[in-house]
Structure formats: C-alpha cells, structure tokens
C-alpha cells in the first residue's frame, strides 16, 4: 500500500520527473471540436491546477466526454491547444501525453487475466515478463486486488473490474488520470464506496484526476474544481462550494440542484432551497402559491411549491421545523427567504 511513497523505486506510481515545474497539470487553450458541421465543443479554455480532482459535469451531449477524449488524445481537436504540465501535447498520441484513461465500462481485455491486463502497457514497451508481472502485482495491491490477479474480467464484479481498470491506467504513471463516467456502471452502494476510494487514491498519488460525470452529487463530493458544461461551453469552473453558493447562471443553478431560480430586481436570482422557509403570505412572502408536493427525506423534508405565477420552487426544511407546522399538497403557502441569501445571476 505504500508503493507510491518511495520515489526511488522505478515503476512505483510516483509522478513523472518534472512534475513540480508547471503550476497546471492540464491546460486547454481555446479548444474546439466539430463533427461535420455540428460543434460539440466550442472554444473552451480551462486550467486544472496540479494534483487536483476535477469533475467535468453536465447533461448528456454537453461535450464533457468529447473534452475528456481530446485531452486523452483519442479525439483530435478541431482547433486550439492542449497542454499537459508545460508541454503542448495537441499532436501527441495518447501514450506520449502523460495521461491515462479509464474507460466507461472499463474495457478490460476479456481474454487476459487481471494481472495481464494491468501488465499490458509494460508488455508493449518490451518489459520482460517477470518484471512486468511483479510490477503489475504492485499496482493490483495498490487497489486491493492482489488476490484476484489470475482471474479473467468475466469473473470479477463491477467494482473489482473498476479497480483492475484503475491499476491498468495507473501503471503507466500518468500525470493526469482521465475517468469517463467511472461510477455509472456501479450500484448506488458501491458507487459511494468507490467514490471515496477514487478521492483517496488521487490524494495519495498526488496526480490530477479528470472525471466526467452527469451527477452533481458525485462532482460535489469529489471535486476540487467543478467544471459545469452545457452545449459545448464551460458555464462555470470553480471549487464545488463556490459553484453551490454562487452559481453564475440560471443553467448552473438549476443543474447543480438545490436552488430556486426566481425573477429578481434585475434579471434572475438564485436562492438555495435549504435557505427558504414555508410561511403564510402574511410574513414577507416572496412567492405565494400552493404546496404541490411533500417529500420526506429523513433529516430533511422537501416541500414543492407552485407559485401563483406558475413558477416552480421548493424549500428544504429540517424535519423538526416541518413537523412543527406541517403543510399538505394543495394548501395555500408562501416561500420566504432573507435578502442575504438571494444571489443575482448573470442571465
């Protein structure tokens, strides 16, 4: 488990030489991708600081996977430059970029054992069999898969396959690990556990992870840098807390969830649902209407509200507050919040 901590041993998962030089692990400079007339990614620029966990977040078709594949070198860019560390790798093949990719559904070679899967990158480089198998074992141990080394992928569970795929990607000693929807094939329980492990690995290895997901929860839980994408554009790139507290557009506020987007003085404002209260129209009502739904979530209760103007909104209130003065669907109600909780949106 400490294989990574000794930089002197060759083949252990330490960052490659020259790692400390550049302040950014990944830099996208006005990168575009178009396919026969349709633009998938439109002139995006992004800097991912070294050793950070970055999530590309957005609805399907927003260009996040294409962006990841362009960083990996599996998709040529139509315009722009990609830098890994301080090297421009725009025209480099995948292996010469310092990146490594973990594919959606893992793409483990079905005819090879877990060990041979992990050792494959060493095999193509001509590392002798005993040496590459020994090193592959180290990496299988790193992801706690040492005991399954001889099994073919078909005999591994989804979570185990993912660990093998991780080991296979990490053995190339990438500076940046690219993960394409790595958790979407797992059941919810396993998903949360693997989420924790990904974060732990990233922290231990001190390399950057770029993780594509459509799940806000995943991005919030993992990322140092959340990049919200829509229609081929980056709408906001900021730490998770900044995104949640200061979403810059109505799209980001809605997509990240937990916000009400309502008309304000100049343009829209976002206000977090957990900062809203349900009250009668007497006290400082901001939005009057009637209760449309009540969802009991355990610690919290989500009260949906349809305003008289047709606007949908919600309040997340603690179970204690809710049950002190419960409301029912159909009942007239009003949403209130404090001025300091309203956050103006750009558009």
């Amino acid at each position, binding site marked *: 488990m400490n294989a990574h901590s000794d930089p002197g041993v060759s083949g252990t998962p330490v960052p490659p030489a020259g790692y400390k030089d550049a302040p950014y692990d990944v830099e996208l400079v006005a990168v575009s991708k178009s396919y026969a007339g349709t633009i998938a990614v439109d002139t995006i620029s992004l800097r991912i600081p070294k050793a950070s966990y970055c999530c590309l977040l957005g609805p399907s078709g927003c260009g996040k996977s294409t962006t990841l594949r362009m960083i990996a070198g599996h998709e040529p860019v139509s315009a722009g430059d990609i830098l890994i560390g301080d090297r421009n790798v725009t025209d480099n093949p*995948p*292996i010469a970029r310092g990146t490594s*990719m973990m594919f959606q559904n893992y*793409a483990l070679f079905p005819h090879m054992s877990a060990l041979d899967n992990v050792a494959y990158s060493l*095999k193509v480089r001509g590392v002798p069999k005993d040496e590459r198998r020994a090193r592959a074992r180290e990496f299988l141990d790193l992801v706690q898969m040492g005991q399954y080394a001889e*099994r073919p992928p*078909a005999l591994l569970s989804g979570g185990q396959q993912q660990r093998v795929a991780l080991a296979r990607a990490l053995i*190339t000693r990438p500076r940046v690990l690219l993960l394409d929807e790595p958790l979407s094939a797992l059941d919810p329980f396993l998903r949360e556990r693997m989420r924790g492990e990904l974060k732990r690995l990233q922290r231990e290895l001190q390399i950057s992870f770029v993780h594509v997901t459509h799940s806000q929860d995943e991005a919030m839980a993992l990322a140092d840098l959340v990049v919200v994408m829509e229609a081929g554009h980056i709408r906001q790139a900021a730490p998770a807390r900044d995104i949640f507290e200061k979403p810059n557009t109505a799209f980001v506020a809605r997509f990240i969830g937990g916000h009400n987007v309502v008309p304000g003085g100049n343009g829209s404002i976002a206000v977090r649902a957990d900062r809203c209260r349900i009250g009668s129209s007497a006290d400082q009502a901001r939005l009057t209407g009637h209760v449309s739904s009540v969802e009991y979530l355990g610690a919290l209760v989500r009260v949906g509200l349809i305003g008289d103007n047709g606007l949908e909104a919600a309040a997340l209130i603690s179970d204690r507050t809710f049950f002190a003065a419960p409301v029912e669907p159909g009942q007239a109600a009003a949403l209130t919040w404090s001025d300091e909780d309203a956050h103006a949106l750009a558009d």
Partner: protein
Amino acid sequence: MMTEGGQPRSRSFYVLGFFFLLFLAFLYGPMIVIFVLSFQGPNGGMSFPMVGTSTTWFQGLLQATGRVGDIPSAFQRSLGLALLAAALTAVICVSAGMGFRRRFPGAALLFYTAVASLVMPSLFVSFGIALGFKELGWRTGLFTSGLGAQLTWTLPFGLMITFATIGRFDRRYEEAATDLGANSWQRFRDIIFPIILPGIIGVALFGFTLSYDEFARSSLTVGNQNTLPLEIWALTTAATSPVLFALGTVTTVVSFTVLTLAMLTIGLIVRRRAGGRLSAERSAHG
C-alpha cells in the same frame, strides 16, 4: 395429445411440425441409408436387403483398383486443397475485414463486387477459368486454377462472416490498448486477433467444408487429377458396389470430425474467457 399449459396445440403446430419432420427425413434419411448400406455383407448389392454385415467395402476403399479409382490419393488431394483454401480464406478475409473497418469511397461497391460471386453459376465460373487458362496457354492444375476457382466460392462466404465478427468487435478495447501504448500491430496481435479468434476459426471451417465438397467449380479447373467429389461423381456413374456407400460414410465422418474439432476449439476459447476453469476457485472464495 401433446399440450402446453393445458392448451391443445394449434393446427399450425402440426403443419409446421410435419414440415420439419419432412426436412429431417430429406436431410438425414439418405445419410442413414448410406451409412447402413456401407456395412453390407461381401455378397450384398447396392440396395436392401442387407446380406449380412461386413467392413469389406471400407477395405476396398484403400485399394487403388482400376474399378474403384484411386480413392486414397483423391482424398489426400481434397484434404490438402481444403486446408489450403481454409487458411487462405481466413487470412484474406481477416485482412479485408480489417481494411473495411475504415470507411473509404467505393467500399460498398467493392464488397458487393466480391460477394456477387455467390450468385454466379458455378459451372460457368469453372468453365470460364478453364477457358481463360487455355487461352493464356497455361495448364489447369489443382493448386493453381483449382484453388482459384474454390476461392471464388469460399471468399464471399468468409467475407460475410468476417464482417459480422469484426462488426461486433468493441472498439473500446482497441482504444484502451492505444491508451496503454500499443502500436497498430500490437493492437491487432494482442487484442483484436485473440478476441475475434472464434469467428476466424468459423471462417476457416467454412472455407474448409465449402472447398472439401465443392464439385461444380472444381469440375473443369483441377486438371487431370480428381478431387474427392469428382472421384465420387465418377463412381456414382460407374461403380456397382457398396464401396460408394463406404466412401460416403468416410467422407461424412471426416466432415463431422473437422466440424466437431472446430466447435470444441471455439467452445474452449469461449469457456476460458468466461473463466470456466476458475469457477471452482471462485465458489471456494465465495
């Protein structure tokens, strides 16, 4: 009366069932008859009743007498030709299949040009090749014009199976290999080839059986030495003994043996991939 879930069978079941039985009778009936008659007693004739049983006629196969023709040599020729045709079919079809993965202008036209051979009348293909060789002043021969004629038959089938096999190949495996630094040859050797191997064995098997019992396209192109089907054809018109049946039994056994071997190999590969040999270990681990 057969029923399923208490419901009586519909009339279409019996109509279709009868049709299927008819099909089975046409397919296996003659084979069974030939198989039984090949064990005809030494004094028996070419039809029932059986006059005792013996293996006399199988021994007759091995003797290259004038009356029977040279069966062992014809068999060897056919086997050699079929193995070569199978190998060439596999190699050419996989190469073409890999090439066709990249879309290029005229790909569809090229494909249809190649598989159009399936609808060409075999006898005329054979005749045309023989004529062409004659015009050019070349002599037709087993491994020249004969092999070529057979490939016009095995390649189109092989191409279609190969395209289906390669079409099913998940390109993400290849991308993963690229990501890990494999060059195009390593990708093919280590990833694509092993994964599509069961399909390739199927292609080779098809090439073998199509070549092994091909008659029409061989008839005018193999030169002065007969392949087994041509020898058999000569026998059916000339022979008057159950040697013919013994021959039928042996060739059928050869075909089934090849088929079984190929299927076993494919099954072994698939099972190894599914981890069959490790399932005991897995249940031990829980």
